[in-house]
């Protein structure tokens, strides 16, 4: 052969005979049908706690003491428990909202904006209808809150169904629109004229407030939230509609072949999703804040995403996870006095989400023997 081929420099074991047995006769194989069980969220929380413990140590503190203190702050007293539940209520409702969208792979990250619109919608009733009979206020405010949240959800769903606009982007951007709308209202249009420089509306009258439970800040919004869990769980598991959603989530192409219309369901689901977040917003203004004000949400809509995934999108499990995350927020306040920054609890939340997502991914792998 006259031609010297260009691959002569490759000399490492190209011969079949050189096939060496592998040192480890195992390999990881991915199986998309294998999913992790209930232990994945628990393990991810545990791993996240360990990761954050390193940072506590770097701050020169003892992580065991910090975690104990956090736990005591959140669950160690009746005050702590009631505060935890107060935080858990909006988390639970927003979590239910995003979870139902995630079940059909609609990535609604706009619960924050839908929550704010719910709060605005409820407050609008108090602003525009100041002379209603007292008993009408709460039902009307809640309905308006739900409707406003649902419409905000539709703003995401409509472009998605008609123009294939990615809902991840629109729902996120609408959060900022909602936030700016809130700021305009509390600083300008609806600002309490007697409120000096406070950025908020006039305080609600007692008729416009949800009843409290006992002598705590805890309010009957808790009952509404638990009721929403039960209704949603029933709808998802027992009804034809729930079955259609399940199918759309599991295989949208097969669902299409079975005559299920994806677009119709996106519209319905996004209205429910937004409606639940709006419900949370309405409950928050009428149950806790007592007025619409700047910073009405410390990011409930975003935190709810963690609540939903920790519960693996199961409504009942979300009661537990919302309490846990609520406790994390309350517990975070109590360790501030020890010198940890407030953002520590956000860091912990982030670490949990990170571990959870990787855990779900990893649990699809199985160790397989190579023959």
């Amino acid at each position, binding site marked *: 052969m006259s031609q010297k081929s260009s691959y002569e420099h490759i000399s490492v*074991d190209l011969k079949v005979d050189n096939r060496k047995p592998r040192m480890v006769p195992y390999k990881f194989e991915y199986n998309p049908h294998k999913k992790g069980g209930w232990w994945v969220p628990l393990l991810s929380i545990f791993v996240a706690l360990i990761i954050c413990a390193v940072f506590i140590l770097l701050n020169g503190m003892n992580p065991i003491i910090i975690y104990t203190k956090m736990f005591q702050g959140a669950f160690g007293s009746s005050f702590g428990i009631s505060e935890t539940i107060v935080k858990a209520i909006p988390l639970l409702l927003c979590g239910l909202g995003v979870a139902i969208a995630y079940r059909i792979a609609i990535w609604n990250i706009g619960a924050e904006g839908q929550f704010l619109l719910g709060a605005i919608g409820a407050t609008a009733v108090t602003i525009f209808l100041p002379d209603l009979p007292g008993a009408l206020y709460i039902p009307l405010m809640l309905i308006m809150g739900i409707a406003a949240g649902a419409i905000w959800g539709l703003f995401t769903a409509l472009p998605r169904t008609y123009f294939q606009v990615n809902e991840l982007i629109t729902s996120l951007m609408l959060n900022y629109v909602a936030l700016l709308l809130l700021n305009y209202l509390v600083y300008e249009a609806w600002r309490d004229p007697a409120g000096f420089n406070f950025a908020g509306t006039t305080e609600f009258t007692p008729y416009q407030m949800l009843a409290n439970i006992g002598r705590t800040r805890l309010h009957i919004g808790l009952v509404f939230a638990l009721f929403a869990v039960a209704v949603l769980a029933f709808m998802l598991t027992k*009804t034809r509609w729930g079955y259609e959603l399940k*199918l759309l989530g599991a295989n949208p192409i097969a669902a299409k072949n079975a005559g299920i219309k994806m677009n119709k369901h996106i519209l319905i689901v996004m209205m429910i999703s937004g409606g639940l977040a709006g419900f949370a917003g309405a409950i928050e203004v009428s149950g806790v804040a007592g007025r619409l004000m700047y910073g009405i949400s410390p990011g409930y809509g975003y935190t709810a995403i963690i609540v939903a995934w920790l519960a693996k999108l199961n409504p009942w499990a979300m009661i537990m996870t919302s309490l846990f995350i609520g406790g994390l927020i309350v517990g975070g306040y109590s360790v501030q006095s020890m010198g940890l920054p407030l953002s520590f609890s956000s860091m912990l939340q982030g670490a949990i989400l990170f571990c959870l997502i990787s855990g779900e991914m990893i649990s699809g792998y199985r160790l397989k023997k190579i023959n």
Partner: protein
Amino acid sequence: MNKPSIVIEMKDIVKKFGDVIANDHVNFQVEKGEIHALLGENGAGKSTIMSMLSGIYRPDSGSILINGRHVMVRSPKESMALGVGMVHQNFRLVDTLTAIENIILGETNDKWRGASWRKKKQKEIEEIAEKYGLNFPLSVPIWQLSVGEQQRVEIVKTLYRGADIIIFDEPTSVLTPGEVEQLFLTMQELRRNGKTMIITTHKLKEVMEIADRISVMRKGKMIAQMLKEETTIQELANLMVGQEMAEGILIQPVEIGAPIIEVKNLVVRTDQGIHAINGIDFAIHEHEIVGIAGVAGNGQKELAEALTGLIPWKSGEIIFNHKKLVNPSVSELIDKGIAHIPENRMKSGLAGSLGVVENLLMKSYRTEHRAKFGLLNKKANIEWARNLIQQFDVRTPDLLSPVGQLSGGNQQKLLFAREIDLKPKLMIAVHPTQGLDVGATRSVHEMLVHLRETGSGVLLISEDLDEIMQLSDRILVLYNGKINGNLKRGQAEKEMIGQLMAGVTNQKGAFDESKVVV
């Protein structure tokens, strides 16, 4: 140098995917400096054997010799190092990068990547492109290039990486006729420069136009290898589809009944606006299996989708059960009695992560037996599902385990159980035995024949000609969106169908080259 030497020799190659044998003791040789066509229908095993040559798969047994040396090709990178490059059917290019960036992507030799380096590389690439007459814009993002230009980028990419042997995988399937001409000129130019080329295809006319030697594969086996001069299009068509009939189930002759569906002058367009089905007429009657034969991509998919309501049709009429269909929805057609076994059961028929009950419910969950007042009858449904899987012999560990973990045969039986339980008037089965072993194939055939006996009509779309010939009462050959042959049972010979599939319009007598449509 005068005597041609063998550059590629594949000996006794066996490759299995699960129970399916994709390559059954295949022997394949390519001589230096030739254009070698590897001919075969879809699923014949062409792509599998080429994938082993280019390092994507590894053979279960057998050996590969390149330039007379035993080699193990463990990755595309290694195959590239051995001088083998592949131009894939779906190009492996980054859309947002320019041609030059795509070509030098993955280059690891040089540490310095400044402007002068880029200039040097651009010059090298330009030289290669010029040498072989491959012109395309170098500094424009790939997505702005035409398909033909993108393919030229792929060719230059393999040449730039030092390929002496270039594999073209179905290169003409994406090209316009003009671009095909240009590709063939390029290939001839490459041959003049001493490059060896392998082209996989199922288009007979192109084989006769470009190839020096031809290898024919069928059902995982190498059937024949010959020089172009030694053969004719007819012979190749026969070799490709095969002569022998597999032994199969007996079909009792039955009188056909009233027409179930009548299709009149139907035109269906793809998303791109191409007429995939271009004015066809046919009818399916009770007690009748109508088989659609044809090479993939001649309108089968669109026909099935139009008949199941998945896509609208542009013009023409479909009359089902004596009533004209007007923009029917999928669920409307399910209710009217059209069952559908879709092409890829896991992709579009079943939900792999859900259990048996939920998969069985897919088509019938709207009926009163399965759900009342919008609530599912859980207990009754489980009982119903249990009966169905018993009746259809679906082997599953339990009713809740994800169906993605069942074997292919059991998945297909599950799918058939669901569809047959609808008591369909018309069954549309698309590639119903693809990837199934012998036993499961047989059960699928039995179920289709059973449907025919109980009075349903069946539209069978398949690439397996044996299957079509065995089961169909009538065979329609689809070519370029038109019916290129309508044959009764017994009237059809494999040879004739093969030619009709290849676009020959003349049914009897001499082969007429001028009527071959590209």
